[in-house]
C-alpha cells in the first residue's frame, strides 16, 4: 500500500486484467469504523455492511460503477484504490524509446492546485502543462481538445436523431462521457443502451486520435507511443481498460491515473508547482475552447452542445453563449431552449445516480419530454470526481464532530444488533 495524496493505493495493475471482474475500490476492514457514510453516497448499493461488526465491503464488481464517491467521502480513509499505474508511467518516462503522451481531463486543472496550497477552483491548466513537460511527457496533448471534438460528434448525432429518430437511435439521447454512468446503464438499465450517444467519451476519442492522426502529424511511430489518461475519476481506469477501445490498432489509452496520482508524481519529481510559468498544450491535439473546459461541471456538456445545436438548427449565430438555464449545482435541472426556425429543444441535466434513476424511469415509461439528457455520476460533475484531491474537511482528525457522530452511529448500530 502506498499513500498518494491521502488515499491508499494497493499496487500496480496486473497485466491483461478483465476490468469487469475487478473492484477498483475496496474497504480496508482494519480502518472501517462501520459509520455508514459510504452507504449513503453509494447509489447502486454496491457497498454494504458485512458480518457481525457491520464493516463495509464492495460486495461485487458487477454492482459497482467505480465512481469512488465512497472513497472521497470516507471520514476514516478506509477505502483504498486497488490499482495504480504510477509506476508504469515513471518507467515509460525514463525509457528513451517511448514517447509518453499526456491526456488530462478538463476537471483536473480545477483541483490539482489544491494539492500545492492554491485555493480550490484555481485554473492551473498552464502550470499543469509545464509540469507535464518537466516530468518528461514528450507530447503534451489535452483532453479538452477532444471535448470539443465530442461536441461535434455527439452534437451532430443528436441533430440526426432529432431529424429522424429510429429504433436503434431513439430520443432522448443520453450523454456518454461519464464512465460511471455508462456502466450504470449497461448494468441497471440495459434497455436504454440505444439512448446512449454512440460517441466515445473525450478520452476515448483522444487515445484513438493520438495514435492515428497525432502520430501522422508529429511523424511519431504509434507503436512507440504511451498514452496517459489523467482523470478526476476512478471509473476512467475501468473505461481505459475496455477491450473495445483499440480503434487505432493499439490500446488507445495505455494507462489511466487520477488528479491525486498526478499531484503525487509532481511532488515525487521535486517540481515546485506553484512557481511554474504557464505553458500551452501542443496545439494539434491540445487547443481547446471554453465549451470544452465546462465539461468539468454538471450542465457543461449540455451547454457546450447547445452552443453548437442552436447554430446548426437555426442557421443563426448564438450571440449570448452563457446558457445559465442548464448550469446545475446538483440534482435535476430541466430547460426548454427556444431555437429560431426549429422550436423548443427540451433538455435535462442530472448529477448523482439517484437523480439519473428518475430520468431513466421516465424514459423507460415512454414519458420523457426531453431531446437530450446529460448525466454525470458525481454530484456537481467531474469537479467533484472520485479521483480528485480530497476535501480536507472529510477526514476526521483527532477531534471534530465527524468523529463524534460516527462514534454515535456505531454505538447505535451495535445496540440495534444487540
Amino acid at each position: 500500500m502506498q499513500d498518494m495524496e491521502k488515499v491508499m493505493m494497493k499496487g500496480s495493475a496486473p497485466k491483461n486484467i478483465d476490468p469487469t471482474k475487478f473492484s477498483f475500490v475496496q474497504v480496508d476492514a482494519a480502518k472501517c469504523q462501520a459509520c455508514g457514510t459510504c452507504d449513503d453516497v453509494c447509489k447502486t448499493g454496491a457497498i454494504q455492511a458485512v458480518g457481525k461488526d457491520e464493516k463495509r465491503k464492495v460486495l461485487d464488481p458487477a454492482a459497482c460503477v467505480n465512481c469512488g464517491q465512497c472513497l472521497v467521502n470516507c471520514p476514516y480513509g478506509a477505502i483504498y484504490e486497488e490499482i495504480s499505474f504510477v509506476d508504469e508511467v515513471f518507467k515509460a518516462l525514463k525509457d528513451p524509446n517511448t514517447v509518453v503522451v499526456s491526456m488530462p481531463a478538463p476537471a483536473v486543472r480545477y483541483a490539482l492546485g489544491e494539492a500545492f496550497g492554491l485555493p480550490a477552483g484555481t485554473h492551473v491548466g498552464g502550470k499543469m502543462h509545464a509540469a507535464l513537460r518537466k516530468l518528461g511527457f514528450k507530447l503534451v496533448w489535452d483532453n479538452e481538445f477532444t471535448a470539443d471534438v465530442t461536441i461535434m460528434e455527439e452534437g451532430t448525432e443528436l441533430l440526426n436523431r432529432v431529424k429522424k429518430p429510429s429504433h436503434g437511435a431513439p430520443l432522448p439521447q443520453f450523454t456518454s462521457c461519464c464512465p460511471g454512468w455508462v456502466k450504470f446503464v449497461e448494468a441497471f438499465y440495459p434497455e436504454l443502451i440505444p439512448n446512449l450517444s454512440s460517441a466515445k467519451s473525450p478520452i476515448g476519442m483522444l487515445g484513438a486520435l493520438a495514435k492515428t492522426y497525432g502520430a501522422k502529424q508529429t511523424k511519431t511511430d504509434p507503436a512507440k507511443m504511451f498514452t496517459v489518461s489523467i482523470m478526476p475519476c476512478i471509473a476512467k481506469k475501468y473505461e481505459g481498460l475496455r477491450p473495445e477501445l483499440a480503434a487505432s490498432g493499439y490500446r488507445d489509452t495505455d494507462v489511466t491515473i487520477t488528479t491525486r496520482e498526478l499531484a503525487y508524481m509532481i511532488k515525487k519529481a521535486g517540481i515546485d508547482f506553484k512557481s511554474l510559468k504557464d505553458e500551452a498544450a501542443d496545439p494539434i491535439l491540445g487547443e481547446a475552447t471554453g465549451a470544452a473546459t465546462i465539461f468539468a461541471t454538471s450542465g457543461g456538456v449540455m451547454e457546450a452542445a447547445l452552443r453548437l445545436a442552436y447554430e446548426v438548427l437555426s442557421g443563426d449565430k448564438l450571440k449570448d453563449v452563457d446558457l445559465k438555464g442548464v448550469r446545475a449545482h446538483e440534482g435535476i435541472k430541466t430547460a426548454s431552449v427556444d431555437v429560431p426556425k426549429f422550436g423548443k429543444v427540451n433538455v435535462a441535466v442530472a448529477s448523482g445516480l439517484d437523480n439519473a434513476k428518475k430520468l431513466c424511469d421516465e424514459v423507460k415509461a415512454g414519458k420523457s419530454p426531453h431531446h437530450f439528457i446529460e448525466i454525470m455520476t458525481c454530484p456537481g460533475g467531474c469537479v467533484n470526481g472520485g479521483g480528485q484531491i480530497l476535501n480536507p474537511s472529510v477526514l476526521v482528525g483527532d477531534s471534530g464532530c465527524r468523529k463524534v457522530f460516527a462514534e454515535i452511529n456505531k454505538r447505535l448500530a451495535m445496540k440495534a444488533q444487540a
Partner: protein
Amino acid sequence: MSENTDCTRRDFLKLAGTAAAVAAVAATVPGMVGEAQAAELDLVTKRQTGVYAADANPKLYKARKSQENPMVQKLYAKDGFLHDGPTGHKAHLLLHTHYFDRSAGVKALKAKGIKLKA
C-alpha cells in the same frame, strides 16, 4: 468558514435519519451543522465557479464554441483527417463505440437475495 467545519452535510443528513439520541446531540450544535453544510457545498461551488470563470476568460480560451476551435476545423476540413465530417465513416470507426448489456451480474446478485438500490 470557521475552524469547526469538519462535519459535513452528509453527517447532517445521516443525523436527520437516525434516532432521537442523535437528534439531541445535533440540537446542541445547530450552528455547527449549518456551517458544515455550507463548507461542503463550498468546495464543489468553488471549483464550478473556477470553471465558468475560465470559460469566460479570453486569455485562457480564445473561443467559446467547439465549432470555432481552429484545430477542430483543421481536423474536419475538406482536405483534413476526418474530411467526411462529424459522424462520417472514418469518425465512426475511430470516435464512436458500442455498449454491452451487463445486467446479468446484477440479476445474479439480486437472485442471491442481495438488496441493491437500482
